[in-house]
């Protein structure tokens, strides 16, 4: 038995933790001492067994990950070469969203800047509500932009001008108040109340889903809110239809407002909606006490320049 070197020393030798002098001495001892050689072999075998144990553990892990992927019905191996598709992670989604945004911007720029004359005008994006709630005040619609530069009905300036008109004719509304003067406490399970909350959170599609089958007693409220939702979704014709239906309701405090809402739905549909728009403006202008009289006059002037 070589007492000069114990298992720890052998471990140090194998792990390269010995000084050069000690290593040289150890190697000299190895040359002359077969028992030490055997002990070194034992330590090596021990390390190898521990490594094999770890490898088996990892192989078991591989098997469990395979089972996991089979349970998720995502076979890892059994598909044609080159068809592996990784699920989209958040980075890829961001990249995808960025590319889509750039494409949308390019399309918008193309239609606004490069679009050849004679082609159909693009739909105008719905503006964000920016006007005060008080709808009785008149606003300057026409004089804010140099409309003298407008060249023709199909020019690019017209598209920009219509977009501006769309923005300026828009009137927002507060929906947390009941339209028909009903000030009772809100029922949080009422689809209308939920739709209002969704609308205010700009979740227009979800709000619209709740308003597809109106309760008869709340039909006017449904129509009014749905008109706004369609407007924000860029579905101006449907919005116009709802506001039009709303003002046909028997009892309503907002009939006059609804007329103007119909107007602001018609503006982005120009020039196709021009005849209908002029008809409604004429209707408003026939009554000088109408709260929207001045707005209608100015919009009419603006239309003449288109």
């Amino acid at each position, binding site marked *: 038995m070589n007492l000069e070197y114990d298992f720890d020393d052998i471990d140090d030798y194998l792990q390269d933790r010995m000084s050069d002098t000690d290593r040289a001495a150890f190697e000299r001892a190895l040359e002359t001492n077969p028992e030490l050689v*055997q002990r070194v072999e034992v330590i090596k075998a021990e390390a190898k067994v521990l490594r094999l144990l770890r*490898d088996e553990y*990892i192989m078991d892990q591989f098997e469990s990950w395979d089972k996991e992927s089979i349970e998720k019905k995502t076979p890892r191996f059994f598909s044609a070469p080159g068809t592996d598709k990784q699920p989209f992670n958040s980075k890829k989604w961001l990249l995808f969203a960025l590319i889509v945004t750039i494409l949308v911007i390019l399309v918008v720029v193309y239609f606004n800047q490069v679009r050849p004359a004679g082609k159909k005008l693009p739909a105008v994006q719905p503006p964000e509500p920016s006007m005060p709630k008080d709808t009785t005040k008149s606003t300057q619609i026409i004089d804010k932009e140099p409309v003298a530069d407008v060249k023709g009905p199909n020019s690019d300036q017209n598209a920009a001008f219509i977009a501006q008109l769309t923005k300026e004719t828009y009137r927002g509304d507060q929906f947390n108040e009941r339209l028909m003067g009903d000030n009772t406490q809100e029922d949080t399970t009422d689809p209308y109340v939920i739709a209002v909350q969704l609308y205010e959170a700009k979740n227009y599609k979800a709000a619209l889903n709740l308003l597809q089958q109106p309760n008869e007693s709340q039909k006017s409220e449904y129509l009014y809110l749905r008109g706004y939702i369609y407007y924000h979704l860029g579905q101006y014709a449907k919005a116009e239809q709802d506001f039009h239906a709303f003002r046909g309701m028997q009892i309503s405090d907002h009939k006059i407002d609804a007329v103007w809402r119909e107007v602001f739905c018609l503006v982005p549909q120009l020039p196709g909606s021009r005849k209908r728009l002029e008809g409604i403006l004429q209707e408003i202008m026939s009554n000088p006490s109408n709260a929207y009289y001045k707005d209608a006059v100015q919009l009419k002037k603006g239309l003449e320049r288109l």
Partner: protein
Amino acid sequence: MKPQFDTEQELLLALQSSIPAIYNAALKYLYTHGKFIGAVRKQVYALGGDDHDVKIVLNEALLEGFSQIQDGVYDPSRSQIITYIVHIATKKFYTKRRAEGRRTAMHLRSMETNEMETNTDPMFEMDRTERIALINKALAGIGSKCQELLQLQGVGFSMSEIAEKLNYKNQNVAKMAAQDCRTKFRKYLTERPELVAEIRML
């Protein structure tokens, strides 16, 4: 949930770790990495292999790549981890195919049968069974508690984790038990030079 590594450096550090939870996450990331599997598959297909070969080669290459990273053999300045392991896989499969070719030629010379079809790779299964049998043989003389302890130590669990898993009072008790087990195991091996030789040959 699938682990994510944002950089090559993060992945490398995880694979170099001795903590099972960390290196396992890195291994799982590679094991489920579509690009990695795709690259191994491409190489195996190019050498005439099939999906089953892909699975075996991928497991072996991943294990070997991991061992090389842990042993400091892998040089990150020369190639990326995935490229490195795909290279190991290709090399392994090529060697395997060559050996198979030799075996088949010998077989055809000595037997009149042409082909043997199985769903599993007999050599791989044999290797693994042999490995497990040898581990069991080596650990046979140290008792079940010591076997478990060495197994956990081999995997890389810390003494506190081992103490928790094997119900030792604390990590110091686990450490002492581990020392006893190692001494016992070394003694057992010392008394069996033929077993040591067998392990060395594996």
